[in-house]
Every structure is written in structure tokens, then in C-alpha cells.
């Protein structure tokens, strides 16, 4: 049973301190994500959803708690080690609300960036990038620069980029937050389809109830606790 859990968080707490003020954002969060499944997290603005995703991605430290990436167990209090950083490139893909495409690179170069960073870029990755772009419906934009794309197109490119290394888990932080309703729906269905086709597990942060319902598990983050619904 434990074998099929791809991502697991135990007792993760995080408190931000600025001066004398303390803000306990996460209080002993537990979470486990079976392989190939999806989990949605909703919550009010500022309740700590992005912080949680950052901790799951080991971009940010927690004050306490442990994390399992597949078989790899990590202590969340310390900074990510270089080997964990390198491992992350193949284990995790992240999609952000604000796309974060590199403006100087073409769409294709953006998509293949992660392979380039891990030093494994070759023809097969370029072909895979083209496939993913086709899957996301933006194959014709491969040579375009991100500055010339619409918001929906940018997010599709960002999803293709996150999926390039065949990550086990995809973290999506309000991927439709900057998009209008129609476009958001299109992008979301593309995201869900792509994840199941690629076999990637998904953690989706969203405000949209309808999108949340499309995932296997649904949860809400309130007052630092993650509650299943």
C-alpha cells in the first residue's frame, strides 16, 4: 500500500515571523497522494496554499515535519541538498498562476529548459516537447516567443514545460487564476487529461469548486489545517 503513495507529508508546520509578530500559516499538515491520483486544495486567499506547495516542492523550509518523495524521505526543516534539487527536476513539475516563462527563449526552448538544466537534452526531448505542445494545442507556436502569446496559450506552454521530464507529481498553483472562465475550463481539462495520460499525480490549488470536484480527493485549507471534504 505504502508503495503506491508517491508523495506524503507528515506533520508539516510553518510559522512566518516578522519582528514580534508571528503568523502560523500551517499547523501540522498531513497529506498523502497515491500514484496517479489527484488532490485539490481550496482555501481563502492568504491561508497558506502556495506556502504548502513550496514546502512540498522543497523550495521553502518548514519549521517541522517530514516529506516523502516516492521512497526518498526528507526532513523539511533543513534546506534542500543539491542532490535533492537535482532529483526534483525529474520528480516534480510545477505550474504557476503567473506562468513564469522565460521571455528571451522561444516556446520550444522554454519547454525543453528543464531537460537542458538537468543536462539530458537530446533529440528525444525535443520530439517530446513537440508532442506535448501538440497535446496542449499550441504546436504551431513552438518558434514564437512567450511575449506574443495569449494568457491561455502561455499557461498551456507552462504545463507542457512542467510535464517534459515525465514528473511523478505535478504541482499546480491556481493555473487558471489569470484566465477567463472559458479559457480556464479549456486549460483545466487539458491539464487533467495530460496528467492522466502522462501518469502524473496532481496537486491542484484552485478557487474554483467545479475544478476541485474533478480531482480524486478534495480538501480545504483553513486556519492552518487541511480538511478533506
Amino acid at each position, binding site marked *: 500500500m505504502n508503495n503506491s503513495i508517491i508523495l506524503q507529508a507528515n506533520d508539516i508546520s510553518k510559522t512566518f515571523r516578522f519582528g514580534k509578530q508571528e503568523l502560523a500559516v500551517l499547523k501540522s499538515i498531513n497529506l498523502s497522494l497515491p500514484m496517479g491520483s489527484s488532490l485539490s486544495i481550496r482555501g481563502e486567499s492568504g491561508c497558506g496554499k*502556495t*506556502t504548502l506547495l*513550496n514546502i512540498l*516542492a522543497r*523550495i*521553502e523550509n518548514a519549521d517541522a515535519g517530514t516529506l516523502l518523495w516516492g521512497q526518498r524521505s526528507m526532513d523539511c526543516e533543513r534546506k534542500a541538498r*543539491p542532490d535533492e*534539487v*537535482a*532529483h*526534483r*527536476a*525529474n520528480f516534480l513539475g*510545477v505550474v*504557476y498562476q*503567473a506562468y*513564469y516563462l*522565460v*521571455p*528571451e*527563449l*522561444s516556446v520550444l*526552448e522554454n519547454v525543453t*529548459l*528543464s531537460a*537542458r*538544466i*538537468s*543536462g539530458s*537534452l537530446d533529440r528525444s526531448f525535443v520530439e517530446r516537447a513537440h508532442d506535448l505542445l501538440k497535446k496542449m494545442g499550441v504546436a504551431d507556436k513552438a*518558434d*514564437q*516567443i512567450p511575449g506574443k502569446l495569449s494568457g491561455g496559450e502561455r499557461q498551456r506552454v507552462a504545463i507542457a514545460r512542467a510535464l517534459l521530464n515525465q514528473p511523478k507529481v505535478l504541482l499546480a498553483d491556481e493555473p487558471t487564476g489569470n484566465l477567463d472562465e472559458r479559457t480556464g475550463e479549456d486549460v483545466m481539462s487539458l491539464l487533467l487529461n495530460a496528467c492522466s495520460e502522462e501518469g502524473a499525480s496532481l496537486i491542484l490549488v484552485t478557487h474554483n469548486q467545479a475544478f476541485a470536484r474533478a480531482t480524486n480527493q478534495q480538501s480545504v485549507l483553513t486556519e492552518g489545517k487541511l480538511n478533506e471534504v
Partner: protein
Amino acid sequence: MKIPWPLFLAWKQLFPSRKIVSFFSLLAVVGVALGVNVMIVVVAFMKGFQHKFREDIIDAQGHARAIPLSRTKEWRILQNELLLMPKVSSVTPYLQGPLLVQKKDYHSVPLTIGIDLSRGEPVLPLDEFLENGQMRLEAHDAVDVTPVPASSSLHDDVVFVSQYVANRLGVRPGAILRMGDSKGQQDDALGVSVYEFSVDVPSAEWHLEYLGKQVWALRSPGLGFAREIKPVDGLLIAGPGTPTFATISPFLEPEIGAKSTYQTFRASTIEVFSPAMIEQAQADEMVPPKEVRVGGIFEVPWQGFHAEAMIGSFRMFEDMRTTTGLCDGMFLKFSQDISNNEESLYAFCEELELARSMDWAFVPWFVENAWFFDLLKFEEYLMILIMVPIGLVAAFAIAIALMTTVLRKIREIGLLVAMGGARGAVGAIFCIQGFLIGLLGAVLGCVLALLFIRFRDDIMSFIVVRIAGDEGKVGVAQFYDFYSLYVPYPWESSESASTFITFALFAVFVSTLAGLIPAWRAARMNPADALRNE
């Protein structure tokens, strides 16, 4: 081939996909290029001036002077010895001292140098000095076609005087003018030009006519002179007291009966007294002065040379002193390998001195002009002092430019770390960017410097004419010798090459260093904070 991804990103930030160049990087590269250009050009020009001063001093007195320490009559032996040495390229013995010269009521006491030009190349480029000093007459309907006087015309009754002396006494060398409104030094209608104009040509009007078949007739009705002349080795020589013509090449057969009129003015005479003669005159003895003709006016480019100066033959000076077999010293010039470098020149002079058991002192030019040499060195230090802040300003500009990109790219930096980029590699992007900007800037700066050196005269004229008009242009040429400045290209001189390379490397080094600060900042950044950055 796989390029490391930080290099790829650094390159792409400078030259983005689907764009020729990013505006930011263009600014940074141009900034570096301008800095490199300024530094190279300033140094190259300073070196050019140094070179020119050096050449001018050496022209005015040779690489060294041999000065007798005891009144010796052996100078001809020394001259022979020196001339036999392969490292010595020319030797000019001289006598020197003040002589009183007089023209009517005007006097001057120029420092007079009597030089012996009988053996080999003279050390002083006298012909150049004469060319510098020549003042042509401006006349309406006539052209001054006097040839530049040659040092070979320095006979015992001829002297060359400096411009200052000429003006003071109101004297000038002989002149020949071609009448009529045709311009140019050559007499195209007759296929000839004036080749030589000696001091014994009297003032007169001359008619030159082409008679056909390579025969010309030279007549002067006033002098009762008429002669037909044929060219010998291209020269038309009609005998003493007449101007010598040369046929021009390519020779075009003139029309038979073609005629030109020339007007000649005889060279001024001046009277010369030696100090001994003046003493005798004071003792009421009758001493006739020596009469000499002004053979030419010279100008020595080096400002340190005596303004009130006269050059005569060695024999004339001996006559004035009524001594023989003495010399006051010798101007010396050595082969390139000795003279190129101060140390070897100094060593060689020492060697010569020791070999002559200290009968003669051999004084290198930079010892004699130590003050000036020190000034040149000081100028060099000053130059470095100016260069350092220029370099720092350039470095600051690059650092600020790169820092701005880091600030612009904070969220991307977070993204790259989140995508598995190592912090060191992320920092390297900015370091590499600094390096690339430095490299491109250095190359562009060198190209700009080459263009600047190539078109320096045009640029200078452009600026000067705009500020001071055409007169200013003359001033620049006259006082600063800007237009004759020797500024070598890097492939012409190793010194120039090392200037280019030094400043190019400096720019690359400083830019890389300047990229280090933003690189360090980027590498230290917390990715979560970076991603949140607005």
C-alpha cells in the same frame, strides 16, 4: 555539442530568440566598447605624441653626442673608427658657438653649428628641416617655384638660418617665380620644372623657350645671356649662375615655340663676425667680416632647439675661428637595435666611452634632455592615473547594468532553482553575461579604436573646423603636429598591439568581476521569496 545551460541562458539574455539583440545588452556592450575605445585612443595618441617628441629630439641632435674631454686633434681618427663600426650608422662632426651676424643695421647672435657633411649621411635630417622652413612667396600672377634647398648646397660661403634669424635680419634665400597665371610647381607647357636654384643666380628675368627636338633656349636679355640646352640625364644645365631645370616625367612633347618667363631674386648676403674678430675690431684693427649667402631657412620641429640658430659648413666655422683640426663634438646615430631601447643605448655609449679611456664622453639623447625625458615619464604616470578612474566608471556601469537585470529577473531566478538549477549555476549566468558583455565590448571597442585611428585626421578636422573654422585647422597642424602624428595600428607595432590587448583584457576582466556581484546575489536568493517577488 552540449553547451552548459547557464552559458545558453546568458547568451539568450543578450541575444534573445527571434530578436537580434536585447536593448539592455546593446547598451551595456556599447558602454564597454566606448570605454575601451577611449582608453586605447588616449593611450595611442599619448604614445604618438611621445614618439613624436622623441623623434624630434633625436632629429635635432642624433642618438648621442661624442664630446671631447681634452682638446684633441684626433677627432678624424675617432670618426674613422666610429664609421667602421656596424652599430654606428652615421657620424657628423661639428663646431659650435655663437657668431655675430649682421645685415645693414640689424644684428643677431645665433648659436651657429658648423657641420661636416663630407662623409656619409648627416645625422641631422637637414633636408627635412629646410623643407619645414621654406617660405614661398605669395604673388599675384606668379607662382613661387623655388625648389626646396638641399643640404648638399651647404658650401663654405653658404649658411642656413632659422626662421627667427631670417625674420630678425630681414633676409631670405634666393627665389624663382614663374610669371603668368598657371598654377602648380611644374611648367607643364614646357615640360620642365625648376630643379636647383643656387645662391649665385642673380636677380633677373629669364625666358625659357622650347625649340623642338628636345632643345630649349634659356635667355636673359637683362644679363645678356642666351644659350641652347639639351637635357643630360634629364637635367637642363645652362652653366653657373643660372637656374637648373629638369624635364618632367612622363614627358609630353611641348609645342614648338612654347615660352615661359621666370623672375629670379638673388639670395641675401649677410656678414658674419667671430668673437675674435669683434675683439680685434674693438682694438681698432680693420677686420673685414666674412660674407655669406643665405642658402635656406630651416625649422627644427623640436621646440627645445635654439630658436636663434644658424648652420654653416665645418670649414667656414674653422675659418672664423682660425683653427684647424679641432672639433667640438660629433652627432651620432646608431643602428635600430641599439637606439630602439634606452638601456641598450646607454650601455653602448658606456662601452664606447671606456674603449676610448675617457678621452671622449658619449652622451645619449635622454641624458642630455633628462628633464624632458622625465616629463614624458611623468606624462605616462599621469595617463595611468586618468585611466584608472575611467576603468572604474566602466566597471560600475557594467555592474549596475547587470544588477538591473538581476532585479528584473528575480522571479525567473526562483523558477530556475525550482526547476532543479543549482544555485552556483544560476549565479554563473550573470557572471557569464558580464564576461560576454566584456568580450563583445572589448572587440567592438578595438574596432572603434581602429576606426578612430584610421580617421583621426578627418575627425579632428571636423571638430576643429566646427569650433575654430579653417584657421583653427592650420593652428592644429602647426602647433600640435596632430596631422603628422604617428599612431601605429596593432599589426604595425608590438607596443600598439599590447595597448589593444591590455585594454581588451582589462575590459573582459572588469566586466566579469562586475557580473560577480549580481551573480552572488542571484545565487543567494531564496527561491520561494524570489517567486513571490513582484
